[in-house]
């Protein structure tokens, strides 16, 4: 039989329909920008897929005074537009508006970005980590909420029996920034990504993407900045602390070797803190 002949394709219009297809073994198709490259990598496309783009509830961004809910099928472009100008989400907006290139951003979804298991350079992952996002899953047993940090660590197992449906964000940030280092000015995967945020308790949150296989919070630096006698929100001071507390093991990849990804982190922290200080939320500092 020729490849693709008899392939099952479910364009689900409800979550129940999507879960039924998942139970039958269908793989979730989001925007397609990751999965559709599989043949180029010598990987066969799945025999059965279920598309989520026709489920209305998964394609909207709901903005409340203290809460934001992002549907998993929302594209980067829509997310950037929806949150543009929302205080505290500058970093998430920058991540959505600068990932990949404009054409990809119109197609690639939030859910797809955080569910692509072997995509270390996902821009939204560190940006959502500093938002301390909660991921809502629909599992075979029902809905489930999990913190983004745990989701990213355990997603391989979690996604075997679940679909990511929504991302929940509290509006507890006063400012955030997202600094990425691509080899060209734009359009390719970043060598390293640093997301930073300051919450209402003036605590600084920092996350790093693309350096290790999975994005994570930089807790050693966060703690050092909290303990710092001098103002930790000084770019030079923050870069010094980043150099001192750099506990990353850089991954080797086509764009850059691991040592380089690790080494660029302090200057990116410096840029990030400088960007934070330019936000309206921190203008009082």
């Amino acid at each position, binding site marked *: 039989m020729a*490849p*693709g*002949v008899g*392939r099952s*394709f479910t*364009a689900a219009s409800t979550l129940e329909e999507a879960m039924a297809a998942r139970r039958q073994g269908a793989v979730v*198709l989001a*925007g*397609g*920008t990751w999965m*559709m*490259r599989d*043949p*180029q990598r010598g990987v066969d*496309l799945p025999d059965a*897929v279920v*598309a989520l*783009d026709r489920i209305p509830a998964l394609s909207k961004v709901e903005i409340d005074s203290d809460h934001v809910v992002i549907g998993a099928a929302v594209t980067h472009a829509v997310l950037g537009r929806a949150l543009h100008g929302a205080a505290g989400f500058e970093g998430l907006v920058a991540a959505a508006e600068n990932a*990949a*290139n*404009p*054409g*990809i951003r*119109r*197609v690639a979804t939030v859910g797809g970005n955080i569910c692509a298991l072997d995509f270390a350079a996902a821009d939204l992952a560190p940006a959502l980590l500093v938002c301390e996002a909660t991921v809502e899953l629909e599992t075979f047993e029902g809905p489930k909420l999990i913190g983004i940090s745990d989701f990213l660590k355990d997603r391989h197992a979690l996604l075997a029996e679940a679909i990511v449906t929504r991302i929940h964000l509290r509006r507890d940030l006063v400012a955030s920034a997202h600094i990425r280092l691509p080899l060209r*000015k*734009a*359009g*390719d995967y970043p060598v390293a990504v640093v997301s930073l945020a300051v919450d209402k308790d003036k605590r600084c949150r920092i996350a790093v993407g693309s350096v290790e296989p999975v994005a994570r919070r930089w807790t050693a630096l966060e703690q050092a900045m909290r303990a710092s006698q001098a103002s930790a929100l000084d770019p030079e001071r923050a870069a010094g602390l980043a150099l001192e507390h750099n506990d990353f093991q850089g991954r080797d990849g086509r764009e850059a070797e691991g040592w380089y990804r690790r080494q660029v982190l302090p200057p990116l922290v410096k840029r990030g803190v400088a960007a934070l200080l330019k936000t309206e939320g921190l203008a009082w500092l």
Partner: protein
Amino acid sequence: MVVTFQLNGEDCSFHGDPMTPLVDILRRERFLTGTKAVCREGFCGACTVHVDDEAVPSCLKPIGLVQGCAVTTIEGLSSGNQALHPLQANLEAADAVQCGMCCPGIVMSLSAFVRDNPHASRPEIKAAMVGNICRCTGYERIVDAVADCLDQARKAGQSVGGLHV
């Protein structure tokens, strides 16, 4: 699976693998070879088409996701018997077309951009075309052509593909 959609304003249907990239259907079944399949990874932009008026890479668009959508290719933007799209006319006037491989994708990306961003600055024009790679590296003339196109439309109080500027 049968997928039905509009292609350059006409009803169209496809019978086959729903994961077939849109670009392959355009080129192999509809012989619309203006859309180029180059990198097939969404990096080069040569396969850009409009799906429901948004410029997207057709290499990464499985036809199953195109059900009920309106697809416009470079051939649909202006047939050989009609006046060129204003952006195409400006690209020609600026002598911006070199080997021609990237141009259909650039026109499709930027025709949507000028429609939606009538007051775009030069840096914004450049940012809009980061997903379209020109190996002849003729970027500056392309940017000139887009800027001229917007400038002319503003002076004439006309639209570039839909929006009055």
